[in-house]
């Protein structure tokens, strides 16, 4: 089979995929290690915890995924987002992560903090429309600012941060002022206002 040797981009947005389809992507790599995606777009599907876990495992095993986008694919308030993000900061290839409009963010605060504090290569991060309580938002904002203020400039590649419809006005203000006063800040695109 020649296909899997060159296939790098897979887009299956809005296709009603479930856990079984996510498992198929993981099995595709397990059966054929040459199947290494660079870009995976699975937005607006219906993954559960098992599907999120399979996608996480697929990304970590492939080690080649630079773009991972699954906006609006986790519709239940369970540990789906937590499973998806667990250990994802160890993927050194990941540069673009879009997890907007997903549910279950409250259970994934620790994993989101890990993304902020430990990911070295993440360039674009979209956290729009995540249902987070103000204290959780504040914790994430502070972890990001702490990371940017203490690390060397080379240790954070985050340049584009999209966080629409998720932050309360005080947290928006804190993030904006913190980024402006942080010397190591590389964020050049910051979208916090409502997208509606």
């Amino acid at each position: 089979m020649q296909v899997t040797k060159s296939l790098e981009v897979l887009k299956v947005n809005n296709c009603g995929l479930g856990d079984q389809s996510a498992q198929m992507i993981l099995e595709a790599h397990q059966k054929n290690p040459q199947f290494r995606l660079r870009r995976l777009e699975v937005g607006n599907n219906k993954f559960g915890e098992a599907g999120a876990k399979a996608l996480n495992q697929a990304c970590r095993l492939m080690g080649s995924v630079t773009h991972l986008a699954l906006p609006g694919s986790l519709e239940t308030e369970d540990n789906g987002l937590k499973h998806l993000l667990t250990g994802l900061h160890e993927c050194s290839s990941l540069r673009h992560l879009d997890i907007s409009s997903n549910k279950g963010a409250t259970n994934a605060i620790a994993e989101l903090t890990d993304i902020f504090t430990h990911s070295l290569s993440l360039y674009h991060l979209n956290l729009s429309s995540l249902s987070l309580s103000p204290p959780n938002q504040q914790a994430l904002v502070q972890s990001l600012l702490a990371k940017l203020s203490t690390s060397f400039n080379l240790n954070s590649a985050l340049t584009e941060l999209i966080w629409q419809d998720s932050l309360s006005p005080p947290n928006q203000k804190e993030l904006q002022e913190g980024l402006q006063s942080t010397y190591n800040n590389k964020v050049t695109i910051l979208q916090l206002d409502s997208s509606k």
Partner: protein
Amino acid sequence: MKYLDEVGRLGSATGVRGVIDLYDDDNPYKPMAQKDAEDKHAASASAVTVSTASTAVRGADGVAEVQSELSDCEETGTEYCRYQKSKKPLHTMSSVFAYKECTEESHLEFAPNVQKYLYDDAVEELRENSRGLMVDKLTSLQHHVNTWGLSSNKYFAENLITKMGNLNKLDFSDTVGFQHRSDMPMGIEAVMAVVAN
């Protein structure tokens, strides 16, 4: 005495009778480089046929002439223009836009099943649409899985995708707004099964 009546012109009008020929031996402003002389026929031909082409050729000649002067300067050791190192004519905006090299993409978007063919009719439609296609050259494919049934997608996977040895991008996203079919995930899984085989 020859140039007495041409004070200040240094004999540049010598031999001119009406139209000035750019490549006339008596023209002191003729192109000096050998390459320009070789382009003479191309320049004259394009000047006759298409005006825009002749403009382009003249522009190229102009650049070449500057280059020859620069190369002369380099040979004589006179450095009038130190930054001009390229032998190729530089684009006027080359300092503004960075050139990005990329590979050529051969993209195919399969038509959606607008007529809502079913079963064998759908497979036959797929077969007709794919007849004569050089699928082995494709690098990017968009297929509206949602509009085709499971059997059609299986046929598509087993008979077409298996021949796409250079496929780099696979797009099954629903972009046509069809009502979702219950067997769409199974259709995608059928394709993925072939890919993962």
